[in-house]
């Protein structure tokens, strides 16, 4: 009975919010309003997934939407003085810096909302583009995300605030990475719905880096959606570091659509977060496209980290690789559920998936669900999953050289994690993340940047 009751509360709250935003005319223009109403209708039909839903077998999100969650307006968030509360201090990391505060694009002036270069490259606020250049985004916006039933995207689209927009025309080159700092700074419990859209048609490598941070310890639910479209031959690398506090609910929905000979690489590192769910959906719609994904989560206390991937090979001769690793301490739970799907005609597909977990405490838990669904015969597909403790032989070898038990554990855990961190191609970022991982594994505070609070 209780759960039904909570269920209703969560849905009623969301209904009220939707009506409120509609009344406030938050949903203009019309085509956007149309999309958003349909998304919300879809949510009301399917509601929250139950544990019987294979997709959410190990993670129940409904209770997190049942409490009082404030939806902050844009004006409320633009009053914050960013320089006072935050400065990214990764040394020698030179980026185009974009800051989102509680889901809203932070710009000190109108001009900063949208940047356009001489070769046609555009980046800036998604909401600004929606209003100013709708023709640019209409063929893409919510196209990939709506093909898969996902209540989190329903909600994101229903309540979408703002986010990053990037368009890279053929031959254009982004000289330095775009860095998005996704900040949460609120003194009450809030719900946040950022949405991002990235389109690349350029064979020059684009690097995009997302850092999720919280600046104080108010609980929040952040449910973000990102759509990335890589046209023929486009190349993009995406890095995401999740490092918000342990009372946060961080939900991300990532949709990657790849065309002919495109190359996409992503590295996710989850250091902190109360409940984290990362949905990654890849559609390979072009031949000879290549997708590589790497993920690392370090979880302790009551953290609950759930990575869910789905890679669809719809065209022949493409390649995908997934490497996901978790280290679980205390009472933490780490979940990996990944699928390789090979369509009937996607011959010569080469797909690999690996999930490895280390359990280092009595009460930590691991759930691993690597899956293959194959409908073509001339393919090479495999997966592996291994969960266990640190290798006894390696431990003894290190200790026999005089290295303490604790330090030997540390060395081996760091080595375990380095398979993933080594995949970060931006050196200063890699070094910073390695330092954070090292500190995190030592149980020290792993604050990067001058956060005003600790992450633990």
């Amino acid at each position: 009975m209780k759960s039904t009751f909570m269920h209703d509360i969560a849905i009623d709250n969301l209904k009220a919010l939707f009506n409120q935003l509609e009344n406030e005319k938050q949903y203009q223009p019309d085509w956007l309003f149309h999309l958003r109403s349909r998304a919300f209708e879809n949510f009301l039909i399917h509601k929250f997934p139950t544990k019987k839903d294979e997709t959410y077998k190990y993670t129940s999100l409904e209770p997190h939407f049942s409490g009082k969650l404030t939806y902050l307006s844009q004006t409320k968030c633009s009053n914050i003085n960013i320089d006072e509360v935050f400065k990214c201090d990764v040394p020698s990391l030179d980026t185009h810096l974009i800051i989102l505060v509680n889901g809203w694009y932070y710009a000190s002036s109108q001009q900063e909302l949208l940047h356009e270069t001489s070769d046609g490259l555009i980046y800036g606020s998604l909401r600004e583009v929606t209003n100013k250049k709708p023709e640019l985004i209409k063929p893409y916006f919510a196209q990939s995300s709506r093909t898969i039933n996902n209540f989190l995207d329903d909600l994101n689209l229903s309540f979408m605030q703002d986010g990053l927009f990037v368009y890279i025309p053929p031959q254009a080159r982004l000289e330095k990475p775009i860095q998005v700092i996704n900040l949460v700074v609120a003194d009450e419990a809030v719900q946040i719905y950022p949405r991002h859209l990235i389109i690349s048609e350029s064979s020059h490598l684009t690097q995009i880096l997302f850092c999720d941070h919280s600046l104080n310890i108010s609980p929040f639910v952040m449910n973000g959606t990102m759509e990335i479209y890589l046209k023929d031959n486009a190349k993009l690398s995406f890095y995401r570091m999740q490092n918000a506090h342990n009372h946060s609910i961080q939900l991300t929905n990532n949709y990657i659509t790849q065309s002919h000979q495109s190359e996409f690489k992503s590295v996710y590192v989850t250091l902190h977060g109360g409940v984290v769910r990362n949905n990654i959906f890849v559609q390979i719609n072009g031949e000879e496209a290549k997708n590589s994904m790497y993920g690392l989560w370090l979880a302790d206390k009551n953290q609950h980290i759930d990575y869910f991937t789905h890679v669809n090979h719809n065209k022949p001769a493409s390649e995908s690789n997934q490497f996901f690793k978790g280290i679980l301490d205390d009472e933490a739970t780490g979940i990996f559920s990944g699928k390789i799907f090979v369509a009937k005609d996607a011959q010569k597909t080469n797909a690999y998936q690996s999930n490895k977990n280390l359990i280092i405490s009595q009460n930590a838990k691991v759930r691993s669900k690597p899956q293959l669904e194959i409908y073509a015969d001339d393919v090479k597909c495999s997966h592996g999953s291994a969960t266990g403790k640190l290798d006894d032989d390696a431990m003894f070898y290190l200790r026999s050289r005089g290295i303490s038990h604790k330090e030997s554990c540390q060395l081996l855990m760091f080595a375990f994690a380095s398979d993933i961190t080594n995949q970060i191609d931006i050196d200063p970022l890699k070094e910073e993340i390695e330092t954070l991982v090292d500190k995190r594994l030592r149980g020290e505070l792993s604050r990067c940047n001058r956060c005003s609070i600790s992450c633990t």
Partner: protein
Amino acid sequence: MNSEDIIQNLTQSDYKYGFTTNIETETFPKGINEDIIRRLSEIKGEPSFMLEWRLKAFEYWKQMEMPTWAHLKIPPIDYQEIIYYAAPKKNKAPESLDDIDPELKKTFDKLGIPLEEQKQLSGVAVDAVMDSVSIKTTFKETLANLGIIFCSMSEAIREHPDLVKKYLGSVVPYTDNFFAALNSAVFSDGSFVYIPKGVRCPMELSTYFRINAKNTGQFERTLIIADEDSYVSYLEGCTAPMRDEHQLHAAVVELIALKNAEIKYSTVQNWYPGDKNGKGGIYNFVTKRGICKEENSKISWTQVETGSAITWKYPSCILKGDNSIGEFYSVAVTNNYQQADTGTKMIHIGKNTRSRIVSKGISAGYSQNSYRGLVKIMKNADNARNFTQCDSMLLSDKCGAHTFPYIEIDNPTAIAEHEATTSRIGEDQIFYCNQRGISTEDAVGLIVNGYAREVLNQLPMEFAVEAQKLLQITLENSVG
């Protein structure tokens, strides 16, 4: 002949056990209700506890819905259109071989399962089950001298009610799932085995299941108890006539291994798979589960699954006793429009428990073949180990091969490893064989058998050869 054609040929060879036996059959009217269950229990001469149990199961089943989570397309089944009891007509129970209808004897002869002990493979005792009843159990006396009970389930319920009462439903309760509930309500026969303390069963025990009658469902129940320090190897085989309609087979098998005991359970499943267009065939929805109840016990499942229109089963092990071992070796072949969603569950409860899973899927034609497995290591299962190897081979570009493992680990000293690959027979492998003078068809046979070797090697010797042939026949002219 190119490899495509060979696949065609291999997969389209005829089902050799598709004949029907003309024999007078006593059947119940179609459908399931309390009266049917009461009548069944009465015919069997069951004690009242059995009837009560059946009725409880039936009540429970009525509240349930058929699960839909498997990667299977199952047309709706009308449970009131099924005949729940069919038995060859007889005036009295057969006292000796002479009392058995010659037609029946001929049937089993034709299936290669002669009921005369002297004609049998030495070292194999057989319980032959036709439709809903056990026809004859061989070597009963030889076994009885060692204290081994090997008889039909009906007989066990009458003659050994204490054992049955204690263990029936103890591993698979009727509440376990939809088909287990149905089976508990209506099972008509099956085999019962009890191996007493310290006895190593000197011969293979075997049950041969045959569906003959039309429109009937087969619901048998098998219960094997291996007492302390005992050992038994058990094998089941099954076939059915070719019929256009689908027939439901929903069996339950329960294994109990006590301290230091070992049970080896092998299945060669060759129910009628339907024709090449997917018409007819058996729905094989079976619950098989064993418990290593006490320390140092071992349960090993080996299955060669080639038949049935749809196979849906997960022979499982509950590793409760410390140091107990569970094994699952499986070859599942699907061809034409067959579907299979099969695998295992290994539940590690005790300390130092070990499990090993080797699954080899082979899909051809338009078939869908899924491995689904759960490895669960509970909080107190210190030093538990699991290794899973799960391979799929695709023999056509129209079939599917899928792998759905679930790995759940709650203990820091446990190690669970899972590996899966998907492949097809390489042109270069076939060419290599061709170049050495081997025909493509033989090459395919060689390669598929090599691929399945690790599993076939687990079968008792008497059946390994048969299983190997069966593999080749199922895929005959279909591999390449």
